[in-house]
């Protein structure tokens, strides 16, 4: 049990490590690639504004000024799996706390962002995508 927990933690937390690095780097420097991480079914909430579909969300974040995110904290849990195949990785929930500075604003903002990442059954290697993304300035 302990070993299986450890392996769950290893899989989920190294996934979170990689995701956190990639996501904010992409948001700050290659925002045009960001949409690849989302699906049209992704649940996206930005400061109380809900987006349905990648297109409206892409239009929205392209209007945001150039950003510089600094991650101060993140944490991640494995979630129960739906699949009958025990080899299929389950979803994970990742919570991030950090600061963001937009180029058209004088001060940093604090943000709290929470992702649920899920394997996409449509991709052959079950690549993870952002199942939900909930961001708030805090």
């Amino acid at each position, binding site marked *: 049990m302990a070993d299986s*927990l*450890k392996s769950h*933690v*290893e899989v989920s*937390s190294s996934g*979170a*490590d990689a995701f956190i690095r990639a996501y904010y780097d992409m948001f700050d420097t290659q925002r045009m690639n960001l949409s690849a991480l989302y699906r049209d079914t992704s*649940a996206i*909430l*930005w*400061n*109380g*504004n*809900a987006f349905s579909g990648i297109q409206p969300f892409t239009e*929205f974040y392209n*209007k*945001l*000024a150039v950003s510089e995110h600094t*991650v*101060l*904290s*993140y*944490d*991640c*849990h*494995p*979630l*129960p*799996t*739906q699949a009958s195949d025990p080899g299929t990785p389950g*979803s994970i*929930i990742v*919570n991030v*706390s950090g600061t963001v500075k*937009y180029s*058209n*604003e*004088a*001060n*940093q*903002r*604090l943000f*709290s962002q*929470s992702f*649920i990442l*899920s394997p996409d059954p449509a991709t052959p290697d079950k690549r993870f995508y952002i*199942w*939900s993304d*909930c961001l*708030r*300035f*805090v």
Partner: protein
Amino acid sequence: MHIDLILLFLPYGLDFDLDGFTVIIYAYTSSPYQRPGRNNRAESSAPSNSNDGNKIIVFVNGTSIGNDERLIDFLRRRSSPAKLSISNQQSNIDGSMVSFVLPDMQQARTVKALSGIKFNGQKLTIKTTVDKELSQQSSTGNTSTSQKSAGTIDAIRTFIQSRHNNGFLDLENMAADPTLRAASIVPPGGKMSRTNVGPVMMKVAKELFPDITTISFASNHLKSLQPISAVAQYFPKLQNLSLKGNDIQSYKDIENLAGKKLSSLRELILLDNPLRDRDIARNKDDLAYRSQITKMFPSLQVLDQVPVAPKISFGLGDIANDSVSSSTLPKPIQGNFFDSPGTQAMVLEFLTSYFQLFDTNRAALVNMYDNNATFSYAFVAEMSPLQRSQNKRGDTWNDYKGSRNMTRNKDLTSRTQKLHVGNNAIIQQGLLALPETAHDLSDASKVCVDAWQTGTLLPAICIYISVHGEYEQIRGATKGRKSFDRSFIIAPAPPNSQAAMNGWKCLIISDQLTVRNYNGSKAWQPEALPSASTGPAPGAFAPAAAVPTAPSQISGHVPAQNAPAQPPAIGLEGLV
């Protein structure tokens, strides 16, 4: 709203001690270890196991009560204003039980009501030889309490009526008011004033005079605005506020009404408070003081009866969220989000019960977590923008050593150790290791909730919940106010689960907490509509002759279109 009224008459301060959930039955047996108390106050003989004539014996049990004098003092304080005539006090040898005698049912009821209260960090169980009679009385309606409650409300109503005139509520020097004195009501600012006297007064005032635009709290010995913070809840469009002649020492003490809470506030008086006097003495002028106050109350036009200088910036140290105009963002900030009213009802019910137990009886949450649930928390040590703006220091990690913050916990062992799996581990190693807290959900503006259903993501249809808010850390190295973010995933409780049998509709699957240095609640306030601009005008508290030049300040007429956008109420009030 009936909650306020009930709480008012609990015979003890209600901040952290409410515990209506767990009753631990302590079976008293005549202990061979009983010994005479160290400081028997009365001459009567040792208590027997029976009801000795009219005397009632009370047994207070806890694992290490220790010094019984301190316990007795504590019970006396908590029973105030009722006076306890305690006699024949005794304790057993290991300090786990204290007994004493009370002369009448009234006092017994008062003390019995304290059962479950925490003393020295542990819960006390209080039994009396008249428990049966007490419970029968309370089930048939506690007449003396309800009479007292009706009398108190009537007194507050009479008092408010006597202090109101044409939109102006003059609550100056309430301690000297004969109506309040006659009803033994200690007003806000008074010694041992109950925490909800202020809220009840404001609620009554709102019911009687909804058009109040001006309130004076002059000369009430207020040390902070906490006791009167309900002003923002009941009169969010208040225009004029006087705090003249109180005992306000620091800017922190007025935070309770600062920011956008009173978005229409145009005049504020802080004359004759140590905060103002000291700041001016130190700086030799009032520039820094006026700068700070106008920053904290951005809508202010008149401060201390002098018009606020228009659009003058007083330098650095802006509060980040204040100085950033929303126009730099492509979408305005919106209030709480729920994907359906059903989700909203479920989530609010869950959060209300959860945080109440989290504050008062964390161990009882064991049934709310799934056998395979996960919990962890992360501590963010960096200073918040609000702290930085106030030149405060950030908190240390001392009380949050189990933080799983993965920017700092890189190795697999600590990441595994700090992830708590299963309901028992979550309670014992996770939640109970966190410092004691008090979450205040009554002010909806201080909490932000987003929630939606998870569809087919998980084996059951769950609800994802993201909560942002604040709590008071009650003790410990870093005690004080903290901000937090919390993500829950909750599933419907299966019919025969422990959760369902304990009355919970939901079961927690995943729970992540982030604790941050306090940063207030401005960041998630929905964008308020611009208020009508009026130039600086004489204040409403100006001498009577000046009043007619600004009639609207007193008339109470606030055009409806100036109402600030209100976030959906998620406080307890909206629930019950």
